[in-house]
């Protein structure tokens, strides 16, 4: 390639030269769908956290939330880039993130829930980070080399995230009467979205059977253990088993996602062809 003749934006694109793995068209489609689901999940939560920018309760926590947002955005980009390569239709990460409608998004409902107050955001993050941390630990052993590499990279960052949200659950739960009340309300509101993280869709089941992604049983056990330990230290009651919301992984979303996408995709849809 002669770089002198390339348009300027190409200079900013990071190139991955690892060849794609040999997959049959069916398996390739499964890996593509699943990679998109992971990318959507990181992107939507990243966007929610970014909404705190300039609104955090104190400067340090404003920075913490936007830093975590940035890590998740980086993870989402790595995943969208991989998805675009798997798809092989000439789409870019930007097309996949900015030009798909809400029904095409496959993130679990948890990550699109509104920020609420700081306690709500902390609890949403705690539920997700605990899943994310133990999930990435397993995914880094995936037989899919690219997913494994992305997981290995993100795991190091996720270990800071889980520490942050766990410490805040403890601080707020075992804090003042008011902060405890708010954490209890956050648990009442958000617990019902935790089950979907461990619910395997037909795509996930097929990939688990092919040993490309981890089974969720052991991850759920680790999640239960960590969550119980942190809630106990936070003097918060562990919720009873209850009915769980789901649908996001199938594209059935709460109304919140549409509002997120209208904000997130505004620029790309108004001025098409912009590059990240």
């Amino acid at each position, binding site marked *: 390639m002669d770089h002198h003749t390339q348009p300027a934006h190409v200079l900013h694109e990071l190139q991955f030269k690892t060849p794609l793995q040999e997959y049959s068209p069916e398996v390739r489609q499964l890996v593509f769908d699943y990679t998109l689901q992971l990318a959507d999940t990181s992107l939507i939560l990243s966007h929610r956290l970014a909404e705190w920018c300039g609104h955090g309760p104190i400067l340090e926590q404003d920075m913490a939330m936007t830093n975590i947002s940035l890590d998740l955005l980086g993870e989402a980009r790595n995943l969208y880039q991989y998805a675009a390569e798997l798809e092989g239709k000439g789409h870019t990460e930007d097309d996949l993130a900015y030009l798909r409608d809400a029904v095409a998004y496959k993130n679990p409902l948890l990550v699109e829930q509104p920020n609420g107050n700081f306690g709500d955001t902390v609890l949403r993050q705690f539920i997700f980070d605990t899943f994310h941390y133990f999930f990435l630990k397993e995914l880094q052993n995936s037989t899919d080399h690219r997913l494994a590499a992305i997981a290995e*990279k993100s795991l190091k960052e996720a270990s*800071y995230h889980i*520490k942050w949200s766990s410490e805040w659950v403890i601080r707020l739960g075992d804090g003042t009467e008011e902060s405890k009340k708010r954490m209890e309300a956050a648990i009442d509101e958000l617990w019902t979205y935790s089950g979907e993280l461990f619910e395997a869709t037909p795509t996930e089941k097929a990939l688990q059977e092919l040993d490309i992604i981890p089974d969720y049983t052991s991850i759920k056990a680790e999640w239960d253990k960590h969550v119980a330990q942190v809630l106990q230290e936070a003097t918060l009651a562990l919720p009873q088993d209850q009915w769980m919301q789901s649908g996001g992984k199938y594209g059935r979303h709460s109304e919140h996602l549409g509002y997120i996408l209208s904000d997130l995709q505004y620029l790309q849809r108004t001025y098409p062809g912009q590059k990240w």
Partner: protein
Amino acid sequence: MQAATAEKVWQLLEDVYDPEIPVLSVVDLGVVRDVQVQGEEVCVTITPTYSGCPAMGVISTEIRLKLLAEGFANVEIDTQLRPAWTSDWLSEAGKQKLEEYGIAPPVEPTGNVNQLFGKDVTVRCPRCKSENTKLVSQFGSTSCKALYQCNDCLEPFDYFKCLK
């Protein structure tokens, strides 16, 4: 141009700096993982420090511009995620430059790095060298830094996080 070797390219890259920590070259930072030279073509493999590090795009562009300016006709930059970057790859010279610049370099944790609630490390104040410092926030001005404050001279300072 003179016949280029990989060593020559590594040397040239010593002059390409991290846009956010301008005392560190991309070599000091440990993001350059490999250099392959073939005639006037060069391929540089880089790895991001953090997944979302916005400096990577700029670093990639600056490496390219530097090598084009030095006469390479074809510069290819590959990104590699695995093995994932660790602060162990920061050069000794880089650590020293960081401290002189006012950023505390990464400190080796003593306990198990994988435990969730590890004891915080002792970070030395880059200004007065006191070890009586406190963590203000695990997240700082960039992905790779945490915020500390010195209890003796009261200086607030950045700490380049240890990432394993």
